[in-house]
């Protein structure tokens, strides 16, 4: 599960941290414990991730690229299927899903709340190029929002939904968003 831009040491740190989060049930794990699990010196953790926020941001990005990775889509109309699968993956790893969710909502600290945006834009522009700017933005924003761990957290927490119901409702909402452009594909 190699992720571009990460050294082997960094990947080992993030994997060790993720493992510990699941075992302990909290992201409150000391660098000493992370270092021991990764088999490296504590100062190596500090050198790579000077603050806890740095470590959390890197961990969330790594989780999205590995444990929660989406299968590649070839059409914007595949996105509901992708969302359905993503919700099932989040539900299988709730502790890690919460870490990704909270990290994405840190606001000003360089969190990337919509990592899939560029891909959605590419797909939409290729298939439905006739949308005006406002409509295009609205579709991308709605799908980005639904294709995120926030959906899983909110549906579970606010509505007590289980895995099936979350996957169903999230995919349903994405289909609703696509209804408005379903028949506007470029010939």
């Amino acid at each position: 599960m190699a992720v571009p831009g990460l050294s082997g040491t960094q990947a080992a740190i993030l994997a060790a941290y993720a493992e510990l989060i699941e075992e302990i049930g909290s992201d409150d794990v000391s660098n000493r414990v992370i270092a021991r699990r990764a088999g490296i010196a504590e100062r190596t953790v500090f050198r790579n991730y000077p603050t806890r926020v740095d470590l959390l941001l890197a961990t969330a990005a790594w989780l999205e690229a590995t444990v929660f990775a989406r299968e590649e889509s070839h059409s914007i109309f595949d996105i509901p299927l992708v969302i359905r699968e993503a919700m099932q993956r989040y539900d299988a790893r709730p502790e890690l899903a919460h870490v990704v969710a909270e990290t994405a909502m840190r606001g000003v600290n360089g969190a990337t709340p919509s990592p899939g945006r560029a891909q959605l834009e590419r797909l939409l522009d290729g298939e439905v190029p006739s949308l005006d700017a406002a409509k295009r933005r609205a579709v991308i924003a709605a799908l980005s929002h639904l294709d995120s761990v926030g959906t899983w957290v909110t549906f579970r927490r606010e509505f007590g939904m289980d895995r099936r119901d979350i996957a169903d409702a999230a995919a349903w909402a994405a289909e609703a968003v696509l209804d408005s452009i379903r028949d506007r594909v470029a010939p």
Partner: protein
Amino acid sequence: MEEPVDTATAILASAAVLLRERTFDDISYRVLADEVGISERTIYRQYPTRAHLLAALSNWIEQTRFPLPPFVTVSDFRAAVHERFRAFDASPAYAYVGARASAISPTLDTEPAYITRAIEAMLEVGAPTLNRRDRRRVAASLRYFSSAMFWARLRTGFDLDAGEICDAFDHAIDTVLAKLPDATWAKP
């Protein structure tokens, strides 16, 4: 708010003041204790973990800064959410705390937010014959598009202002509501 308040609330009020100049992550219990004029231990007794503090702070901000206008119809709901997004834009630091608190694993009170109940009630009255699964799908979608998370994602990830976020919200809920046949809605 010059009334004497209990310790738990005093801690939240001070944390809210500190949020004007630093992020939640930079508000240590030490700094907070100095600000309130109590011991760090007292804060730990009220809020054993930072997740407890975050959840309580978010609830308090929600009640004092972002009270939700009541709504019964979909158009009232729409107006209430617009007002909320504009209030978020005016106090982004507070709104980010709300977005973040709604993403954490629930600490004590797992009660759904007031807005969730209000949306469910709106649909019960407005669409009484709608089957349960579709009602939950609609409620969950409306809830999620009206959330602080939606505002935060569009502000941070898309660089949109409140007006543009309201437009994106309107578009999203229109697509969701369009799933329901016209006859679904109770005639007033």
